[in-house]
């Protein structure tokens, strides 16, 4: 049962375990006779200490103290007696039921034989020997010697003498033959092996030679191949460089041709643009414009000034004369008030238009002219003098007009 239990557990867990329950020692034979003097005690039962009643289990504080105090519990006593009786009865039954060896067959007798290592004499009398020993004071207990039971009985020996069993020479012959034969055979084999080895070596050598030759050939061919390849590469590279250079040169040429064509019109366009922006100019034109024309304008202005001055002077003169005459006339008038000619309309109108012209003229015109003209409105002189005056004015006015137009005309083309 223990083994099956273990088997089950080992199968479940997959590991090998071996346990065994505490079991009875296998050799429990009685070495000595049952002691008749010994009282029937409680049979010394082997058993599990788990179920031994002498072992106290459980709480020690609530023990059954009845038996210990000496007042035996009547129930307990009865139980114990009953138990004893039952145990004895069981024992007897078991004695009866104990298997024994079967009865001997007819004509035979069972004999007890000792099968142990050392035979033992079973005598009725118990051999008693008194022994005493005295241990030394401080000696260690020597190890117990191995127990070898004394030898009893008789030794018997036999001896086989020479020549009694067999004849050596005869017997040895076939063996010798075999041995020698085998040795020789072995030697032969070895020699043959050696020969074979030598042959093999020779053939190997020959093979090596051939192989070397072939290898050399192969190397040569390889070298040749490599040289060819390198040559090819070099040629290809060269060719590629040539083609490259060719392309580059073609590109350069086309770039140059393109640049030439593209910038063919550069110089003329540069010059025309510089001329348009005014950097390049016709020096004569410029010279005329900068040098000559201002001088011309200046001169014209000067001439006009002179004529203006002349006219102003003339005007002043006329004014003087006319004033003097007026005074004379007034004096006469005071004596003769009937002679009164029309008012200032004629000369006034004249004066206004002339004033207008003078407004439009160059700003350098002195303002005194205008004042003077305005003042002449108030002239109320004799008709003949006025008429002369008016004519002179007209003439002067026309002259001035034409002069002005001419000068204005001159400024325009100079622009």
């Amino acid at each position: 049962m223990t083994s099956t239990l273990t088997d089950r557990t080992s199968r479940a867990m997959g590991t090998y375990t071996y346990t065994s329950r505490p079991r009875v020692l296998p050799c429990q034979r009685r070495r000595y006779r049952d002691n008749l003097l010994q009282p029937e005690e409680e049979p010394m039962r082997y058993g599990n200490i788990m179920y031994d009643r002498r072992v106290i289990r459980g709480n020690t504080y609530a023990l059954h103290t009845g038996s210990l105090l000496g007042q035996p519990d009547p129930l307990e006593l009865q139980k114990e007696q009953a138990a004893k009786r039952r145990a004895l009865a069981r024992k007897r039954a078991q004695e009866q039921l104990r298997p024994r060896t079967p009865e001997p067959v007819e004509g035979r007798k069972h004999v007890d034989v000792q099968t142990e290592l050392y035979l033992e004499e079973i005598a009725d009398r118990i051999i008693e020997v008194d022994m005493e020993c005295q241990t030394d004071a401080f000696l260690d207990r020597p190890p117990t010697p191995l127990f070898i039971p004394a030898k009893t009985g008789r030794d018997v020996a036999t001896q086989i003498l020479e020549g009694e069993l067999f004849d050596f020479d005869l017997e040895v012959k076939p063996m010798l033959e075999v041995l020698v034969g085998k040795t020789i055979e072995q030697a032969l084999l070895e020699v043959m092996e050696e020969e074979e080895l030598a042959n093999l070596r020779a053939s190997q050598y020959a093979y090596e030679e051939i192989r070397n030759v072939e290898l050399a050939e192969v190397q040569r061919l390889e070298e040749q191949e490599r040289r060819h390849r390198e040559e090819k590469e070099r040629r290809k590279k060269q060719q590629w460089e040539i083609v490259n250079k060719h392309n580059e040169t073609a590109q350069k040429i086309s770039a140059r041709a393109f640049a030439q064509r593209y910038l063919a019109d550069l110089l003329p366009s540069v010059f025309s643009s510089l001329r348009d922006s005014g950097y390049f100019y016709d020096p004569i034109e410029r010279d005329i414009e900068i040098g000559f024309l201002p001088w011309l304008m200046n001169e014209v202005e000067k001439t006009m000034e002179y004529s203006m001055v002349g006219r102003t002077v003339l005007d002043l003169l006329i004014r003087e004369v006319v004033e003097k005459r007026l005074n004379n006339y007034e004096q006469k008038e005071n004596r003769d008030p009937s002679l009164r000619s029309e008012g200032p309309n004629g000369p006034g109108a004249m004066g206004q238009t002339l004033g207008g012209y003078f407004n439009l003229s160059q700003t350098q015109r002195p303002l005194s002219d205008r004042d003077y003209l305005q003042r002449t409105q108030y002239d109320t002189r004799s008709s003949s003098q006025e008429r002369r005056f008016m004519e002179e004015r007209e003439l002067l006015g026309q002259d001035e007009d034409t002069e002005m137009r001419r000068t204005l005309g001159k400024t325009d083309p100079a622009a």
Partner: protein
Amino acid sequence: MDATTAPHLIPPEMPQYGEEKHVFELMQTMLEQLLIYQPEDPISFLIKHLQRDNDNVPKIVILGPPASGKTTIAMWLCKHLNSNLLTRDNLTERKSSSVATEARKHYQKFKRVPSTLLIRLIQQRLTEEDCVKRGWILDGIPETREQALVIQTLGIAPRHVIVLNAPDTVLIERNLGKRIDPQTREIYHTTFDWPPEPEVQDRLIEPEGISEQETAQKLLVYHRNIIKLLPSYPRVLKTINADQPCVDVFYQALTFVQSGHRSNAPFTPRVLLLGPMGSGKSLQAGLLAQKYGLVNVCCGQLLKETVADKSKVGELIWSFLEKKVTVPDSVILKMLTERLDQQDCVQRGWVLHGFPRDVDQAQRLDGLGYVPNRVFFLNVPLDSIMERLTLRRIDPVTGERYHLMYKPPPTMEIQARLSQHPRDAEERVKFKVDLYYRNSTELEHFYRWAIAINGDQDPYTVFEYIESGIINPLPRKVL
């Protein structure tokens, strides 16, 4: 290299590169600078010039009578183009130069700055770093022809000259309302340009010299001088009418300033005409090809030609056309590549129309390297298209093509037997136009520098617009 190898052709990338990077203009400016300054070490001078990289900075002169708004326009342009404003006042007020102090003294004494001092001031100012880097705008200088000539002799040449023009009466009236903000020196007007913030309104003062008489005087002087100034700047001048709202004047000025001038660079036009069916692309392409010798590449026509040629590509295309399936992009591109690679296209330039129809095709075309340098969108309203196309008729007997509105048939007999091509049916036309409009916005985004032309006009007018678009350089957006 031997002479026996095939004829070397200039790869087409070279002229394209030249065009893109404006190589010709660059060389022209460099040579001009060399001629003007004549340095001892031309190479390092050229290197410095290239490093400065200021060929495209604004160089503008704004002239005009008093009260025409020169200063306002000049200030706005300055802000917009991030440039420097130079007026007589701010030149004389500079603290750091001796010439300026001299000029100021002179001004205080005589109320005018002599030309020589002014020119020296300008010269000094223009050599400073910020004018070199960001350009300059001269406001009201030169005043007289002498000043202009001296400036030109020094080599200072403006790229754009704007002259504002308005009738005298308007100017006199306008000048009476002029007000100046003393802090920011900005000019406002009581009627036209009143500032919104009340603090600025309170600050405004009347400048001196705005009475009618003084304005009239100034106008006289101006008229005398401007007549002589105008011929000094023949090709770069533009007169703008100042009698319009400020904003209009400003925008006109801005567009003018941003457009370049025609250069003499060799230019092979590669024109792309885009527009809905019936906008006149084939007609314009034909006119362009005739006048300028360009190769007219019409996609539809090219397809038919290739099929008729029975080449490999032709066979491929025929297989698609047989099944009435649209030919895939790759095949069309292959055919176009073949055509556009031929020597005559490369040399003379081409006009392409009928392709691309959407952004995908455009991108692939670009990827292959056929970038057009002028793209035109012909915009025609749907009604015009319908009118143009649905009234087309053909006479089956004589084969003559008529249009019921533009070229009606002479006799009733002919008119009776006219028939219409199924392609010109209304639904088909609408469908095709829809197809175009679905893709047109994306195409407009893709070709950002395209020029939009109103195609609804007389064909020769449209042709003139296209011509001017081709000949004038593309405007450079400074924004």
